[in-house]
């Protein structure tokens, strides 16, 4: 195989702003906080940063979803950039990190600041979940939609919760998935969140609480849906040459998963029980010298619990259709289990940092900085998965050269 250029990249620094519900701070304020933390963590100065990337930045969803644009962040930090990038289309939220890896590998930049910022909790205020309709705005008669939304919104399928409930219900039919199995993703997240001071929901959650919770859209209940929050996560993607000089252990990028071979659609994808996690995972393993058995800690997207179940299967931790049995009882995915999962609480309990919280936690665990929630055994290999439905990306990180 030709040289895998992503292996020329490392994550040399990580940073996170305050994370919480209704912080009442602007997205730029949170982003600057996270960025400065990440730059310092990497042992760098603001003037060392010559690349900038985000997901999605301007032009996608409302401002509370998109975060500040890359020009806004560039200007706020007076960065002098050799390369810059932002956008919402690509292999999941983590696409911005992939772009940064390739920019570093190509020599377009040496240290890239990559960030993802959300202020959805402050934006929603007391209004609660509104789905796409809320993000787009109402009040001017019956809104009209073109593009892919026209096939879903007229039917009240206004949230990814609805679209992914269809995935879950098909799995109930095909594989006998049960709610007490699905619950394990939420319960595991909550147990881990109790040990994460930044998590938004830390009080204990029992199986009885889960089974008694109100339905959002069957079979998904309140605890199957992640929690909107405010927060910014930043990482510094540097050229691997910098790794020996970085003050913290560098997290080496071993392989990225970027494929999308099925139709890019919430309703037309050939296999509604997997969707694009299948393609992203397969393309990642095809580039890796490692296999699922080598993974020490997994940070798998849990915007909805069902997505984590899909990732567990498609990444090869269990066979297709067997994720329900795999997570049953919760011991396998606990911090002390064979596959510690979503060790910061994930998005279900940690807050919807939209993929980047999971990436941040993968680095925390590889560095051994997890404190009370650090998994034992000195983890060396982490997998991060972002997205679900027709939008997915994954990456393998290692402590030390792959």
């Amino acid at each position: 195989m030709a040289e895998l250029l992503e292996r020329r990249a490392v994550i040399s620094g990580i940073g996170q702003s305050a994370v919480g519900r209704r912080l009442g701070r602007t997205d730029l304020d949170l982003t600057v906080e996270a960025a400065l933390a990440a730059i310092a963590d990497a042992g760098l100065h603001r003037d060392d940063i010559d690349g900038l990337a985000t997901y999605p930045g301007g032009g996608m969803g409302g401002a509370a979803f998109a975060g500040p644009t890359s020009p806004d962040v560039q200007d706020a930090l007076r960065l002098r950039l050799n390369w810059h990038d932002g956008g919402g289309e690509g292999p999941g939220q983590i696409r911005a990190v992939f772009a940064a890896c390739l920019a570093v590998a190509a020599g377009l930049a040496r240290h890239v600041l990559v960030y993802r910022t959300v202020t959805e909790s402050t934006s929603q205020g007391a209004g609660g979940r509104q789905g796409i309709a809320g993000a787009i705005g109402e009040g001017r008669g019956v809104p009209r939609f073109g593009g892919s939304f026209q096939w879903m919104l007229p039917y009240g399928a206004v949230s990814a919760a609805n679209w992914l409930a269809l995935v879950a219900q098909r799995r109930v039919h095909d594989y006998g998935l049960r709610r007490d199995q699905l619950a394990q993703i939420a319960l595991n997240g909550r147990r881990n969140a109790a040990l994460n001071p930044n998590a938004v929901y830390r009080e204990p959650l029992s199986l009885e609480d889960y089974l008694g919770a109100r339905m959002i859209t069957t079979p998904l209940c309140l605890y199957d849906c992640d929690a909107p929050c405010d927060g910014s996560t930043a990482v510094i993607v540097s050229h691997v040459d910098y790794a020996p000089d970085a003050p913290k252990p560098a997290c080496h990028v071993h392989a990225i998963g970027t494929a999308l071979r099925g139709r890019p659609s919430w309703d037309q994808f050939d296999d509604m029980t997997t969707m694009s996690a299948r393609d992203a995972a397969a393309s990642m393993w095809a580039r890796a010298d490692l296999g699922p058995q080598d993974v020490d800690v997994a940070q798998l997207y849990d915007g909805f619990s069902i997505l984590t179940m899909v990732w567990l299967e498609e990444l090869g931790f269990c066979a297709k259709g067997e994720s329900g049995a795999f997570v049953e009882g919760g011991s396998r995915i606990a911090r002390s289990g064979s596959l510690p999962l979503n060790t910061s609480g994930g998005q279900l309990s940690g807050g919807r940092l939209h993929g980047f919280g999971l990436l941040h936690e993968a680095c925390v665990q590889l560095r051994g900085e997890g404190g009370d929630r650090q998994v034992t055994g000195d983890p060396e290999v982490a997998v991060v998965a972002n997205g679900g439905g027709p939008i997915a990306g994954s990456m393998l990180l290692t402590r030390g050269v792959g």
Partner: protein
Amino acid sequence: MLPRLDATNEFFWTSGADGVLRLQRCGACRRYAHPPVPRCPYCLEDALAPEAVSGRGRLHSFTVNHQQWIPGSDHYVVGLVTLEEQHDVRLMTNIVDCAEEDLAVDMAVEVVFEPVEDVWLPLFKPART
């Protein structure tokens, strides 16, 4: 919330005016294409035209929505229907005239139309036996 009509999708959203569901079909390779596109995405020939279909299909999956995303909205059933003519053509829709406890994956369904302003939304109900 309604679709915004354009030259490519208008036939689909107004097809129910005479009670018939139509999909684009390629005159060259004979496959149905959905959602509507300017040119056949399979064989790439410029030979697509709307063609009537049976309106029968199977319920590939469904969800009973409980969350009030939109003020005033109530419980409703979002369904994903696979059409009889070609199994990789799916329509997201609402399932109507069906008790929630009778919903079942793979149940037979058939189209009905709900006119709203200038469009006819294809909905599905349990097929008559």
